[in-house]
């Protein structure tokens, strides 16, 4: 595999009871790339994310990260390697103040190691990160109880939680869904900034137009199988993709 290949997924499959959620999916991802994962509902996109981040153990297949097989590792171990994710269903730590939400990742072994424990006052670090993600610094917002945040902010909080871990790969599970156009267009530069900072993104999305503004390549899934992979425009020209999309649902 090429030197700069960061993530190399080979033939992973997962079955839930009778349902083949993911069958023999594989792709490679280079450092700094942005890959979109698209497909109709129930195509197994989220499961793919779960598989890569270790929340679901693959039945077979290998997931090579920097040449090391991480398939079946515990989620927290994988996260400590620098592969982090957002959740489709956002559940911030609703009983904690927003900025305290970041205390959790800031206490992770990964961050501790990276900073050799010299992070100083975690709260202020947290505030910095939040600001970086687009919370106004001196407004009350960061001090509010996270549960009370509006959707847009919650999405940002999800991202903030990822960034706090100083990740190498972020898997975004539908960060755009439910956001207004303006919110999205204010979030896109954020994502671009991550890429510039050298992070690699995998974005599961339904909002194709917005996705294609950032994605270098897309992976199309249907009924748990990869049906196409490549640069967005070309992929969307393929018949089986169209078919899948007309067959599947286009809501959201």
């Amino acid at each position, binding site marked *: 595999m090429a030197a700069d290949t960061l993530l190399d997924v080979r033939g992973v499959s997962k079955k839930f009871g009778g349902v083949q959620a993911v069958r023999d999916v594989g792709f490679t991802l280079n450092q700094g790339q942005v890959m979109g994962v698209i497909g109709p509902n129930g195509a197994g996109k989220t499961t793919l994310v779960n598989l890569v*981040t270790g*929340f679901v153990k693959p039945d077979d297949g290998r997931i090579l990260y920097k040449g090391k097989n991480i398939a079946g590792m*515990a*989620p*927290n*171990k994988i*996260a*400590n390697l620098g592969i*982090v*994710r957002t*959740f489709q269903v956002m*559940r*911030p*730590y*609703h*009983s*904690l103040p927003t900025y*305290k*939400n970041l*205390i*959790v*990742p800031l*206490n*992770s*072994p*990964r961050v501790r190691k990276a900073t050799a424990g010299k992070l100083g006052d*975690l709260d202020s670090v947290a505030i910095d990160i939040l600001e970086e993600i687009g919370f106004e610094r001196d407004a009350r917002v960061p001090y509010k109880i996270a549960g009370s945040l509006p959707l847009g902010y919650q999405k940002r909080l999800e991202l903030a*939680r990822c960034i*706090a*871990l100083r990740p190498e790969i972020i898997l975004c599970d539908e960060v755009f869904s439910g956001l207004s156009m303006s919110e999205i267009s204010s979030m896109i530069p954020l994502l671009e900034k991550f890429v510039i900072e050298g992070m690699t993104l995998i974005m599961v999305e339904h909002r194709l137009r917005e996705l294609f503004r950032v994605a270098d390549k897309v992976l199309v899934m249907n009924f748990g199988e990869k049906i196409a992979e490549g640069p967005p425009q070309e992929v969307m020209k393929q018949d089986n993709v169209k078919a899948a999309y007309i067959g599947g649902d286009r809501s959201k």
Partner: protein
Amino acid sequence: MPSQDQRKKRLDRSINVRSTGLYALSSWREMTYLLAPRLLLIVGLLVLPLVLDHYWQRVLCTAGVFAILALSFDFLAEYVGLVCLGGALFIGFGGYAAGLLNEYLGLPPVVTIPLAAVIGACLSTLVIMPCLRLRGIYFAIITFMLPLFARNVIIALSLFGSTEGITGLDTLPNIWVEQYVIVIAVLVILFALRRFASEDVGLIMMAVKDNDRAVLASGISIFRYRVLAVFIAALMGCFAGAYLTHLYGWLGLSLFAMDFSILPIAATVMGGMGTLVGPVIGALILSPLSEALRGLGQLRVVLYCLLLLLFILYKPEGLMNFLERKYHQFERLEKV
């Protein structure tokens, strides 16, 4: 009762103080406003032993035991999300540890109680650890059964005096020590827990409760924190157990009695889940109540559970939250 054309309007007191801590220092009024309730509790608890008669002093001691158990239940349930219905397990392990240390090694209570707290806590943690992978009701049910099984095991292997237990252990020097040990323990644990909840570790535990998946995704092992939490809770419980053992100089199977699991829960529900203070108050109301109702025999238990039911159905927030709201808000009727 408000009439047709009127409605209740709620107004909040001194929001500033509560929202931004620093503001409180601005005036004595605000500070007292914040401190008064806490002081009331502390002073109240410390004075109580002085005003009670001998018998009620003894009741206070057992009430304290239940208060600590309630605290440990509340902590596990509301700060870590582990609903542990097996408080008796802690009492049992702590009690037996203390009793055996005292009986066989002849150690004095001042040594056995802390030592037993630690030993018992380790044991309980070991026993509960396999169940930690379970969530929600599974965990609850298992922990509910554990004390009963611990009991049976002791009978089966006829350990430590089996069904007759061991009596004649050392007791604490006098009624004052007995009371203040437990009262101070309650206060210390109470405020220590409140402090702990604002530390990073505590925050992470609450995070685990809110959304363990996200915690995992943040590269933190929830298992380790759950174990830690159980250990802390067990530490309190076992301390209470060890204390109880030395309060009556007895150890026996009934240390695993179901009352130790049920009453604290009742106290917590009544006092207000997640408030920490609530459970203490609940315990201080309920266990004297159950003493006062002793004359009624079984009826007592019945009334007791009725009360619990009423609370859970009609006042799930519990006394404490209710009082707190009353303290921070005042109501007045106004024309619609």
